[in-house]
């Protein structure tokens, strides 16, 4: 249903451009279509303000490609000057007359409307609220507060206990984050934040084709948590201000935590293997080698510092071809790093099972060796050391200490991982080495494009790996 004037589309385009989660920044685009979902909550009488609904926004780019975004909108009858940052636009609505439109996640009363459907168990033809266990929901809808750290999604914290993650870019199909959390919650995992429910929707494209997909997920809020990246930076910083001590002698030593984190990741892998299909693949090594070598060649064209190490890394990937044993494949996290881990008072939790954001949804649900995740974590320790070192200026002594920190915590993580029954990890494995190099190549491309100042971090890692060949 579309009941908004064309001028509104242009206002929405302007709003998208200002948001961090909009991936089309800098490209020529226009908003071509808005599909408005039914109103959320009661709209009877004047008490119905703000009117709240989810609008599905189709964006068309100059090259003909399209993207779909979700924009929950709260309609007010008068402008609220305190919400300037959330203003989408103004319009004359066919039913309500003049209204001012805000991004609903920043509108307190509107946030409650987004939650109400879980309590009512609302199941409409266009929007459906799924509840995992009604026992864990409050009796009435709380108001929420949008978290300030907005990435590709927007999260709203409700009260002390739950958090709604709103997917901004919505594709057709199921979101792997929901799928995995649902399975691990059912399995009673203590290493994830339990899933409380999710919202799915059905809409039509401008061409009139039906689409459906997940819109948001409601989880237990890890109230006492700090992410692993912060812990790691604290630890490295504590070491670097001493400079003449070994990592194990410094108070901020993280090795104990890293080991427990390895244990948690291995348990999650075991739970994923139990909850989803697994397979044992022949020829996996050769396929990976093809893929990684192709990515390396592409990267070498984009990163001028890379060709120097190309042969060595090629050789590293080439060894995958001699993997003769079948490799056990399963669902994995797909984009694991320290920022995807949370230390709570009840131990480590792993979050954000969306898979690698750059890949298509179908590909993200594919099976992989869990060593892909392990390699991601190993690289992340290197990153924590490198990122902290940047703040200290160039100093060979500190660089050496930072490297010692990385080595110590990487090996603590691996030993924690290996302590879990059935979790096999060999620090010298060709597969792990290849995943790590592949990840570093990806990082080099990313840093060249986005943060040239940080390129040194993956390049140091690549140089070290090349030297080992």
């Amino acid at each position: 249903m579309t009941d908004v004037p064309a001028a509104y589309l242009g206002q929405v385009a302007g709003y998208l451009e200002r948001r961090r989660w909009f991936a089309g920044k800098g490209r020529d685009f226009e908003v071509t279509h808005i599909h408005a979902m039914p109103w959320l909550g009661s709209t009877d009488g004047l008490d119905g303000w703000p009117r709240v609904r989810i609008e599905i926004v189709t964006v068309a780019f100059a090259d003909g490609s399209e993207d779909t975004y979700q924009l929950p909108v709260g309609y007010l009858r008068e402008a609220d000057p305190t919400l300037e940052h959330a203003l989408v636009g103004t319009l004359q609505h066919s039913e309500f007359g003049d209204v001012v439109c805000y991004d609903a996640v920043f509108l307190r009363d509107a946030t409650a409307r987004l939650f109400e459907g879980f309590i009512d168990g609302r199941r409409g033809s266009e929007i459906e609220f799924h509840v995992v266990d009604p026992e864990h929901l409050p009796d009435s809808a709380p108001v929420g507060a949008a978290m300030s750290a907005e990435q590709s999604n927007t999260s709203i914290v409700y009260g002390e206990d739950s958090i709604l993650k709103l997917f901004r870019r919505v594709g057709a199909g199921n979101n792997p984050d929901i799928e995995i959390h649902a399975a691990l919650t059912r399995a009673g995992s203590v290493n994830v934040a339990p899933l409380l429910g999710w919202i799915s929707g059905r809409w039509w494209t401008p061409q009139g084709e039906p689409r459906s997909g997940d819109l948001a997920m409601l989880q237990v809020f890890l109230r006492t948590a700090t992410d692993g990246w912060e812990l790691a930076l604290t630890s490295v910083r504590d070491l670097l201000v001493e400079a003449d001590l070994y990592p194990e002698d410094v108070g901020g030593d993280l090795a104990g935590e890293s080991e427990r984190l390895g244990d948690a990741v291995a348990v999650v892998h075991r739970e994923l293997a139990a909850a989803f299909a697994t397979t044992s693949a022949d020829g996996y090594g050769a396929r990976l080698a093809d893929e990684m070598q192709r990515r390396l060649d592409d990267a070498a064209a984009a990163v001028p510092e890379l060709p120097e190490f190309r042969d060595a890394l090629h050789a590293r990937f080439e060894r995958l071809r001699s993997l003769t044993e079948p490799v056990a494949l399963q669902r994995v996290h797909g984009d694991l790093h320290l920022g995807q881990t949370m230390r709570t008072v009840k131990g480590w939790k792993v979050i954000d099972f969306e898979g690698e954001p750059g890949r298509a949804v179908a590909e993200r649900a594919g099976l992989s060796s869990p060593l892909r995740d392990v390699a991601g974590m190993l690289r992340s320790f290197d990153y924590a050391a490198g990122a902290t070192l940047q703040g200290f200026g160039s100093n060979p002594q500190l660089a050496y200490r930072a490297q010692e920190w990385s080595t110590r915590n990487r090996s603590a993580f691996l030993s924690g991982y290996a302590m879990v029954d059935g979790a096999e990890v060999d620090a010298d494995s060709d597969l792990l080495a290849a995943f790590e190099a592949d990840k570093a190549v990806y990082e080099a491309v990313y840093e060249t494009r986005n943060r040239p100042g940080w390129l040194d971090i993956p390049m140091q890692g690549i140089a070290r790996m090349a030297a080992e060949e």
Partner: protein
Amino acid sequence: MSSDPLWFKRAVFYEVLVRSFKDSNGDGVGDFTGLREKLDYVEWLGVDCLWLPPFFSSPLRDGGYDVSDHTNVLPEVGTVDDFKALVDAAHSRGIRVIVDFVMNHTSDQHAWFQSSRSDPDGPYGDFYVWSDTDDLYTDARVIFVDTEPSNWTWDAVRQQYYWHRFYSHQPDLNYDNPAVHEAMLDGLRFWLDMGIDGFRLDAVPYLYERPGTNGENLPETHEFLRMVRRTVDAEYPDRVLLAEANQWPADVVDYFGSFENGGDECHMCFHFPVMPRLFMAVRRESRYPISEVLEETPAIPERCQWGVFLRNHDELTLEMVTDEDRDYMWSEYAKDPRMKANIGIRRRLAPLLDNDVNTMELFTALLLALPGSPVLYYGDEIGMGDNIWLGDRDGVRTPMQWTPDRNAGFSTATPGRLSLPAIMDPVFGFQSVNVEAQVENTSSLLHWTRRMIHARKRHPAFGLGSFTDLGGSNPSVFSFSREFDDDTVLCVNNLSRFPQPVELDLRRWEGCEPVEMLGHVRFPQIGELPYLLTLSGHGFYWFLITSAVRGGPV
């Protein structure tokens, strides 16, 4: 004292070794009369209850925990009448008194043991645990591993082995003998009749032994404690039983007894693991060592309370940390092997923290704000040091430092006559660290500690309130709230030596205003967004959360 059955939940406790506090008669040993003379100081500091470790008759081979007569006192600390006068004087100031009572064992010099070994068929023949062999109860661990090869020792007189969980000169009483129960109750009544306010019951987990068990926390032990509690409640209201059970909180919680009636064993238990975790958290600059152990601490019955402490007359107890943690604590605080004793470390708070005032204040602030009733150790309020060259645990039991004068003002005796020498090193010696100097100086640690104690006493939330860990964006900052009725206190602690920012989710108090408690400084109103605070290295805040009504010029 006015009747108040829950007084212990709000009280600040102060542990005083009578022998080391004040010597009134110049014989080199502190005594009851000396302590009585110093009650003005104790009252000024804000102490609600004195805890006096053992002063019963004893050969003093284990700091008085080897009792040879449960109804008499060591002659050098005074007489039973002197003690009665002390209790009366304390009560007249509103200060309560609890004393140590050793349940598990006696000295081998006790008349009961002497009779038991020489007359197996006599009235005391069955007062101790005797056996022809030493292979019973082998699952019970040896506690003093440095000195004791076994829990059994051969007695040449009776020609049998006797059981002892601690030193071999401390035979365990036989709680399977009802006569032992009666004898112990009579011992308790003797002191309760004198008006004391309760007991710290020493080493309670070990009263019984049974084959195939580790001899700790047995059901029979709990049954006996319930009987003691019933007796005390019936005959002496408003008294408190404080258990020393050096176990994980999940096991200790059983010593409070049943939840249904608010607890029917001990009113209080010490919370042991929180203390080494505080040290580790500051060292790691991470809140998780503390947060985690508090999260693992079970709820306790309504009319019960934890006792929390930083240091006491025993060593820094490390039995409650994991092996990994223990190795870490050892290597950190015990660089000198002489500082190790058993599985612990003998240091006072100030030397443990390298005499860093900011850190000492942070630790004390945590002690006074965490759930439970704080137990201060005499001398820590002025930052006293220790003497690692003294044997056993005497290094932390040296005379209280009152003045820069002879013997630290503790005694007029010839210095060589003191039971333990006063600290004289350049950093912690009584010429630089003493009560007189710190009373004169209002920016001293002593005045600071006093202000904090009094701030705590103004807010029932500290003693009676719930505890909520607030998490936060910065792993080095430990933040929590305490709430009781409309009294809400917010405590934010920087465990790092560097300045730290923290963003706290305080939405539950949206619209309220935090008021810093010591200076009554109003902080910005709490909104929907994360609340930003910055703290200096090892800095902390205590805030009162008030509904925001801002006064101002009209």
